[in-house]
């Protein structure tokens, strides 16, 4: 597997978690989520590909969406975590931290001289 493919797999695998984290502090509309992700990560390759993921997470019941008409000259669609989404985010965060800790431990062990 090439380095690019491996990184792409990590990127795609963590995008759901990153999006849920982006709305964990409060509702955000699509572009605000993208800007938040761009500020902290390099997970967004093409902005347009984030919207279908938001749609899927909404369909899975992890997010809820609402059109807000009067905030800007054009309507914006806001996303917020549902109760199920909050629960899933907690599970994903725990799993991710556990995963990183174990890989880190493995890397430390591999660096140790035999």
């Amino acid at each position, binding site marked *: 597997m090439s380095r690019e493919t491996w990184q792409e797999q990590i990127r795609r695998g963590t995008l759901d978690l990153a999006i849920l984290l982006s709305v964990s502090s409060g509702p955000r509309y699509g572009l605000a989520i993208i800007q938040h992700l761009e500020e902290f990560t390099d997970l967004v390759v093409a902005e347009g590909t984030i919207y*279908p993921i938001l749609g899927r997470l909404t369909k899975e019941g992890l997010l809820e969406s609402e059109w807000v008409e009067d905030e800007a*000259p*054009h309507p914006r669609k806001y996303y917020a975590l549902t109760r199920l989404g909050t629960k899933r985010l907690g599970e994903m965060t725990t799993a991710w931290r556990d995963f990183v800790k174990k890989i880190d431990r493995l890397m430390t062990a591999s660096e140790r001289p035999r």
Partner: protein
Amino acid sequence: MTLTAVGESRVNGYLFVLQRSLKTFLPEDSVRDAVREIESHLRDRIAAADGSPNEREAVERILAELGPPLRVAQAYSAERTIDEAITTGRLVPMARALWHLAVSTVAGFGAALAVVIGTMTSLAAIAVAVAKPFFPNNVGFLMHDGDVVPHTFGGQFPVPAGEHVVGGYWVIPFALTGGLVGLVLTYRGARRFLTWWRERRLS
């Protein structure tokens, strides 16, 4: 930045292509919602842009960051159609996902063709089982007089001279079992293909 008529036309052209692409696999209300959301994104980006060095380049930069409309549509397709088909396992979403892959990829076309052949063959076998009680002398294994191996499984109306039907009513459980097993295998094959496709997309 406020767009001129030329800039508006470019943005509307992008949204038109996106809408046309989404319409091939998404229901009308989902298409409307998706296009409205992408337009909202573009309007926000355009409002925040300073239009330098000129409007045309600024609009092209915004559209490039969003991604080509076909790529955005493909992302919707991958996320919604295939995932829905795999997650629910329902026939309509699976047929929709297969149709979308069939018209957009060679592998998808091959898989859809195999699914159509598998489904039609299985349904034909079930039709034979259903028809046998009504047309016992026309439906079953057909053999040439004097042969020991049947040459056709199905029905002939009328049975040609020099041929006869064999197998009796044993044809019914045979065809029914074959048809149902064929349908199950076709369904499982289609689902396995879609799962493979999704994993391939992720890798």
